């Protein structure tokens, strides 16, 4: 026993060093899973507050840019509304007709699918391997984990940590995150980030016979966590992979991650039901 105590006294520093390093490694290991830990993240109360105070100051310098982007978005939404008005719903209501009176499968389900909540970005990073954004809304405002986050111009990321007043969002500029995407003609692929350039995304798994032109737009696919048809970016260049018959498409991200100010958090009301179904069928 005495020898043991002497041993500990002699190597106390080394033992403490090793213990602390192991604590760190355990922490890193825990964040790399999807659940993560909410305490050591910028969603925690203290760091959230510091970031909020800073954002309150810096906020005023970006007002002009923000106004412009909101105007652009308004114009875009107006255009969409107008295009919806031009559809004659009475003529197109073939789906309303039931083939058999007892068959109820063909009536329109009103998917009041998505709830949009606005949030202000209070911290933002673009230079790490996994980039996070902190927003000033939390579970008190109805934000929950794994909700999708978009900006006025494109997709941003997914909510990862939530506290009562803040939430941290892992952006698509991250090695952990893949987003399903589709080309204009409906070809599916997914978006990854190469961890180098904050504006360049890569779309993979597109067959080589798809002809993709420079400047084509890429949108979110129906089965991603985002609502469908949100712009992701425009094609900069394409690159054929020799090993298989796929090609890589480099995209210019439509979201400007350097000056994100406001984002929308999308709650998909149907996603729990969908997930439950998919999980239960996956188990068998």
């Amino acid at each position: 026993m005495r020898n043991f105590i002497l041993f500990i006294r002699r190597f106390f520093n080394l033992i403490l060093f090793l213990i602390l390093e192991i604590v760190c490694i355990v922490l890193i290991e825990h964040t790399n899973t999807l659940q993560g830990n909410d305490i050591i993240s910028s969603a925690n109360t203290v760091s959230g507050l510091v970031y909020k105070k800073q954002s309150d100051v810096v906020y005023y310098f970006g007002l002009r840019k923000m106004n412009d982007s909101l105007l652009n978005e308004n114009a875009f939404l107006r255009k969409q509304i107008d295009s919806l008005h031009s559809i004659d719903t009475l003529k197109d209501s073939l789906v309303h007709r039931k083939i058999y009176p007892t068959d109820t499968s063909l009536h329109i389900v009103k998917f009041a699918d998505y709830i949009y909540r606005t949030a202000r970005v209070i911290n933002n990073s673009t230079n790490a391997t996994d980039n996070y954004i902190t927003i000033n809304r939390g579970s008190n405002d109805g934000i929950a984990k794994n909700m999708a986050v978009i900006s006025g111009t494109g997709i941003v990321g997914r909510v990862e940590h939530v506290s009562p007043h803040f939430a941290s969002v892992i952006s698509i500029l991250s090695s952990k995150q893949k987003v399903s995407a589709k080309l204009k003609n409906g070809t599916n692929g997914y978006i990854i980030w190469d961890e180098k350039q904050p504006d360049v995304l890569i779309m993979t798994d597109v067959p080589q016979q798809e002809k993709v032109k420079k400047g084509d737009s890429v949108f979110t696919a129906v089965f991603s966590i985002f609502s469908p048809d949100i712009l992701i970016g425009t094609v900069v260049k394409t690159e054929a992979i020799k090993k298989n018959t796929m090609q890589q498409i480099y995209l210019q991200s439509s979201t400007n991650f350097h000056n994100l100010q406001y984002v929308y958090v999308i709650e998909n009301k149907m996603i729990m039901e969908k997930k439950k179904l998919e999980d239960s069928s996956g188990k068998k």
Partner: protein
Amino acid sequence: MNVYIKNILRFCIIILLQVLILNKINLRWWNEPSGFPVFIPYVYPLFILLLPFETPVWGLLILGFILGITVDTFMNTAGMHACAAILIAYLRTNVLSALLPRNLSEYDGLQPSIKTMGWMPFLVYSAFLIVLHHFVFFTIELWNLSNFGFLLLKVTASFLTSMLFIIVYLLLFTRQSSSRV
């Protein structure tokens, strides 16, 4: 000023400097697709470098852990900064005793600075530990050695700018008058 209050103040200043100012500056040296990676300078290890000479190793380790976890909390990198900070806190005493001519216990009540050590030894001391810190941090962050060149590029670029900011910090916060604190 009391040495404890002074170090607590320095802790706050360095954390705020790192988190609120330096983390917002995305340095890129030239702007091309597939060009240079974006990076930020890390000056917070300076807090460990500037602790008084007689701080025991366990104290350094615990302070390093607190410092690292605080930075991690702000940057959402749970444990990565702490890991690197603890390593340099552990090695600090050895590096200091290797660089200084006299025994460490003879520097009573002093702290490592350009005044007590001179420019050259202090720069070697800080450069060594900062390179180590950056190397460990970026290795953990990237976590694959397949593109080793990219890792080295990131470490070098970040290290050079970190040293630049550390020198600026030292020039700003070192008292020029002869009265020693």
